[in-house]
C-alpha cells in the first residue's frame, strides 16, 4: 500500500537531476529503494539518497513530472524495498551519473570511504563537495570539465578492501571486469512492476532484482549472463540493455 507523503523541497542538483525531499523518514539500509507513486501517472523505483529523499534524473515522462513537483505536493511511497549494501570498511565507491546519488547513504555509513566518480560533465558529479569531506574523491568526466578526461574505468583499478559500484549497466559491467568480484557489490536496475518478488518482471538471469537485489555481490553478477546484455521490457519481451 503506498503511503502518501508531501514534498518538502525540490533541490536542483544539476540541469537534469533533482533531489526530492519528503516529510517522512524511511528506516533503510543504503542501497534500498522506494516505489514512488504519482497518482494517475505511474509508480517507479528510486533509491533513497537521504532517509527522506530520492535523487532523480530526468529520463522520460515520469521523471519529468517528478522533477516538476513543488513543496506541498503529494507523493506516494512504498518501501523500503530490496536489499542494500553490506557495511564495508574503507570501500571504494564507484559511481556513474545519477548512480552517484544512490551511493550517498552508503558513503555516510561507511568507514573511510574513497570515491571514484564519473559523468559526462562536471555537473553530473553529484555531491562532490559533500563527498570530499568524507574521503578522497577521484573524478573522470567525458568532456574533461572536472577531474581526468575519460570514463570512470580509466581511474581503475584503485586499491581498496571492498568496492561498491552504481551507475549505467554497461559502465558497471566494464568496472566489474577490472575489480575482484568477491569484494565488489553492484546495484542492478530492471523494469519493475510489483517490486515485491511476485511478478518476475525484474529478473536478471533469474534473480529478481526487487527482492534479491538491487545490490548483488560481484561473484553472483559474474554468473549472470543477462547482466550488461538484456532485460525484460514491460510485456516480458527481451530487450538489449
Amino acid at each position, binding site marked *: *500500500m*503506498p503511503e*502518501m507523503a508531501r514534498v518538502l523541497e525540490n533541490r536542483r542538483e544539476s540541469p537534469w537531476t533533482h533531489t526530492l525531499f519528503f516529510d517522512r523518514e524511511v528506516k533503510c539500509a543504503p542501497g534500498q529503494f522506494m*516505489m514512488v*507513486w504519482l*497518482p*494517475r501517472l*505511474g*509508480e*517507479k523505483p528510486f533509491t533513497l539518497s537521504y532517509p527522506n529523499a530520492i535523487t532523480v534524473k530526468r529520463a522520460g515522462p515520469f521523471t519529468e513530472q517528478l522533477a516538476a513537483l513543488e513543496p506541498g505536493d*503529494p507523493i*506516494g511511497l*512504498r518501501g523500503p524495498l530490496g*536489499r542494500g549494501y553490506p557495511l564495508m570498511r574503507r570501500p571504494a565507491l564507484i559511481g556513474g551519473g545519477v548512480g552517484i546519488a544512490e551511493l550517498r547513504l552508503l558513503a555516510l555509513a561507511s568507514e573511510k570511504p574513497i570515491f571514484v566518480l564519473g559523468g559526462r560533465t562536471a555537473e553530473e558529479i553529484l555531491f562532490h563537495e559533500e563527498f570530499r569531506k568524507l574521503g578522497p574523491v577521484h573524478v573522470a568526466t567525458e568532456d574533461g570539465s572536472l577531474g581526468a578526461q575519460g570514463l570512470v574505468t580509466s581511474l581503475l583499478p584503485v586499491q581498496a578492501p571492498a568496492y561498491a559500484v552504481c551507475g549505467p549497466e554497461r559502465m558497471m559491467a566494464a568496472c566489474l571486469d577490472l575489480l575482484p568480484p568477491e569484494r565488489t557489490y553492484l546495484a542492478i536496475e530492471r523494469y*519493475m*512492476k*510489483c*517490486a*515485491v*518478488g*511476485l*511478478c*518476475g*518482471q525484474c*529478473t536478471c*538471469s*533469474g*534473480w*529478481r532484482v526487487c*527482492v*534479491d537485489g538491487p545490490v548483488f555481490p560481484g561473484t553472483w553478477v559474474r554468473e549472470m549472463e*543477462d547482466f550488461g546484455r538484456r532485460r*525484460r*521490457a*514491460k*510485456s*516480458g*519481451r*527481451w530487450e538489449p540493455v
Partner: protein
Amino acid sequence: MRPLPRIDPPLVNASGILSYPEVFAAFEKAGACLGGYVTKSVGPVEKAGNDNPVVVYSAEGGAPVLNSLALPTQSPEDWEKDLASLRLQRSRLIVSIYGGTPGEFARVAERMAPYADAIEVNLGCPNKVPGEQTIMESIGQSPAVSGEVMRLVRGACEKPLIAKLSPNSDYLAVAEACLAAGADALGCGNTLGPGLAIDLTSRKPILAGTTGGISGPALKPINLRMTYEAYARFQCPIVAYGGIATWRDAAEYTMAGACVLGIGTAFLGKGTRESAGLTRAIWEGVVAYLDGRPFPDLVGEAHRLPAPDLTHA
C-alpha cells in the same frame, strides 16, 4: 483422461508469480522444493498490461493483496524461444495460456505444447487494462464458452489440460463443461473479485487498472471451498491456489481434495533463498503431518473421515 505428470513434491508456483523460465531455473538451483513450475499466462499477442501501480498490499500482511497486471505477455514466438532454452533438472513445466477468443486459446496451446508437461488454461482473470475489450473477464463466467475453449484446446494439443477456474463464477458448472470437453484436471482457482482500494490523498482508486484480483490469505477460505466442492463433485485431480503460505494451508487444501499445491502471494517480499526455504518448510511440514503415510492418502481426506469418535464411550 490423461494423468497429470508426476509432480514431486506436489508443489508448484502459481501462474504469474515468478513467471519466467530463468526464474524457475534459479529457484531450482537454490533448492526450492517445487516439483513443477507454471509460466506466466502466455497470450496470443504481445501485451504490456497495466501501468504501475499493479499491486496493493498492506505491510502488516494478512490483509487482501490486490493485483491488476492484466495479463502482460510477450509474443508466443518469444515464449517459444524462452521455453526452448529452459533446462529444468527435476521439475515439470506447466505452461499457462489465455486468449482473446476460443480459437486463440487453441493456437497458443498448440504452440506451447511441445515445451510443456501440461497446459493450464486460464479461464478467468478479473483484471484488464482500462477500456480493453477481452473475453478473459467473462469467459470463466460462462460454462458454454469455457467448454468451447476447452474443446478447441483439447483438439489442438495432446498434453494434460488443467482448467483453471475463477472463484467469481458458477465454477462447478464451468468445471463440468470443461471436464466434459476434455480437461484432465481442475485449477482451484484464480484471484477473487476484483476488489477496490481508494487512496485518501488523491481520492481516487490506487491501481492504474482501478480494481485488482484478490490473492493471499483473504482468498484462502474461498478457494479452499472451491477445492472441497469440486473434489466432492468430480473426484478429479485438482491443483489448488489461494493463500497457501504454511504447511497447514497445504494440508487443509490437500484434505479438501487437492493433489498439487500452488504457492503465489506467499512469496511476497521474499528473495530466492528465502522463497526456496519457504517451499521446503511447507513440504517438510506436510511430510511430518503425513506421519509416514503416502501423500495421495491425504488427498480428499476431509470427505472420507467419519465424525471422529472422541469419547471412546
